[in-house]
């Protein structure tokens, strides 16, 4: 798997700064050569890279899975790029501002030829600190892009007040508490926090704790909102508790083993029924009589899971699953998962 080409997907609503980030990646002196798949030519001023124009052709697979859409143009482009093997080190896909990241991600699960040659590294979403809160209200695409992200660059922070910044962070965390969030101006994040993340490698899914601690320097506590319950877990870093009516995350934990004969049918049935609303899911599970950790991840209805390393002797055998999605029925999820306990 080491010789598979890593693929980074750059998303972000119109004007958030995707092209700025892309130009930074391409111009920085890192010794890597990129093949870049873009939708509009012309904004990238780099000569040495391979730049391919894409059409964002999304089609439904005829496999009985209604939300299983893939990017046909990507399958074709990755196949073509493999004829230049050795002439580039990584692929970056820039999606349009209105794109849903799901078909891009699903392409890497569904197409065997793509899967044999390339690996999805991470979905990186650039968000505009000033305008994101408004877009989350009026643009479903913006919300999808936040929900799907492994890494979020909260950009243009110089254009907002500290209070506004805290508010937009809170809104992001209400939707996706698991992504790594980096606050930037002109997308000036260290590139090693954006590239080569291995966010989709089952072996690298070590923990599925919320990523609040990643949020960095802001350790001040925000006590000014009326809904302050006065019992902030310190992990929350002082973020306000926003609740997004539409898009949420749900994490459920069982302090012990799970019966795979109950869990597998349950999760498969769940994503079949609720797949269109479940954008991403992950889990680390202790299966009864199984010394290894079972790790899975999913995008809509597509699940990918495997046994990974052994549970360490000092590690409590707990089973945790998380979902990010629309109108998640937390009670249904909790009851369903709890019934899978061994």
């Amino acid at each position: 798997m080491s010789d598979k080409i890593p693929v980074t997907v750059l998303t972000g609503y119109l004007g958030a700064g995707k092209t700025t980030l892309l130009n930074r990646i391409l111009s920085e002196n890192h010794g890597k050569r990129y093949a870049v798949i873009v939708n509009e030519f012309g904004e990238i001023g780099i000569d040495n890279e391979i730049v391919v124009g894409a059409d964002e052709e999304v089609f439904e697979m005829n496999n009985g899975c209604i939300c299983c859409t893939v990017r046909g143009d990507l399958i074709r482009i990755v196949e073509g790029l493999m004829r230049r093997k050795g002439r580039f080190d990584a692929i970056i896909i820039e999606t349009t501002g209105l794109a849903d990241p799901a078909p891009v991600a699903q392409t890497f699960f569904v197409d065997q030829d793509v899967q044999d040659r390339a690996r999805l590294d991470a979905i990186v979403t650039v968000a505009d600190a000033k305008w994101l809160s408004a877009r989350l209200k009026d643009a479903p695409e913006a919300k999808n892009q936040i929900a799907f992200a492994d890494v979020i660059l909260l950009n243009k922070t110089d254009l907002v007040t500290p209070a506004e910044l805290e508010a937009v962070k809170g809104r992001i965390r209400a939707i996706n508490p698991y992504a790594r969030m980096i606050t930037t101006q002109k997308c000036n994040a260290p590139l090693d926090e954006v590239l080569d993340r291995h966010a989709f490698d089952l072996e690298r899914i070590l923990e599925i704790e919320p990523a609040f601690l990643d949020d960095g320097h802001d350790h001040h506590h925000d006590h000014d909102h009326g809904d302050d319950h006065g019992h902030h877990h310190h992990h929350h870093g002082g973020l306000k508790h926003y609740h997004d009516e539409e898009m949420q995350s749900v994490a459920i934990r069982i302090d012990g083993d799970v019966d795979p004969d109950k869990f597998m049918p349950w999760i498969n049935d769940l994503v079949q029924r609720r797949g269109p609303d479940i954008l991403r899911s992950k889990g680390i599970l202790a299966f009864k009589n199984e010394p290894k950790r079972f790790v899975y991840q999913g995008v809509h209805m597509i699940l990918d899971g495997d046994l990974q390393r052994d549970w360490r002797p000092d590690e409590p055998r707990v089973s945790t699953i998380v979902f990010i999605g629309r109108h998640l029925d937390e009670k249904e999820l909790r009851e369903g998962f709890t019934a899978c306990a061994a």
Partner: protein
Amino acid sequence: MTAASFETLTQHVADLPAGDFVAHAAFLGKVPVLAMSDGRIRIGDASGAREVQAHDATILVAADDATRLVTGGDDGKVIAIDASGSLATLADEKGRWIDAVALGASGATAWSVGKRVNARDGKGRVKSLDLPSSSRGLCFAPKGYRLAATHANGTTLWFPAVSAEPERLEWKGSHLDVTWSPDGRFVVSSMQENQLHGWKLPEKTHMRMSGYPAKTRSLSWSGDGAWLATSGAEAAIIWPFSGTGPTGKAPRECGVRPKRTTQVAFHPKALVLAIGYEDGWVLLVRLTDAAELMVRRGTGGPVTALAWDGAGQRLLFGTEDGAAGLLTLPGG
């Protein structure tokens, strides 16, 4: 079957230094020609060859009609090459990738760029058609100036010289390559969903050919048109197309190995199939008695190109990692 039990022809194979991903193999007249992904065309056998640079870019697709080779590159160019090595630029799509090319009778050429498919007749007149989505597969009818082009949810049949509405053959899913039977009665496409779909013409009745573990990317008709060989399984899957076609009939499986087939090419005259595998092996299989002959015991990359000469005396092959060879059948 163990490797030791293969009759072998390996001593009759001359290695050819291709040096890069072999995109296409062909015989132009009697001259073996290899098109490499890095844009080079190698013309000639081991005793003497010359090279021309057809594209300063990557060759993505290629096709031949035994007199000329046509390549499409990621430079947006469609280039025709003849056995003397002279080049002609048939089209320049200004850097947009050429997704498919096909050759027809009387010098006709077709290529696709995104959703647009273009047909150029022997006199150089170009007609264009916009499809519902981009096309990865083009094939001219065996007779007449008519083109089949695949796209999402079907295949379109188009008479470029006629202003009539193109005819649509519908089937849900994403269609990749396409082939037209030599008698013109069947159009068969390979699909993203690891199956083939066929239409019997003119009724447009459907034929589903499924069971593949991978996509079929190589299709080859037997010289008599009675069989269609296909890649994409751990054997060459050969469908019967005599009479009413394959519906209700089981396919033949030839060259069964624990490796997937990537290329198939029927001998032009005999019921002998050349099969290339994902591990670089090449076998010949005789359909009448399933006898197998070893052409290449592979190392490394998948076989990406196979071609017989018109007489069926020589077989040219190439691989993804730049190996190539020319088999000359003994006693021919």
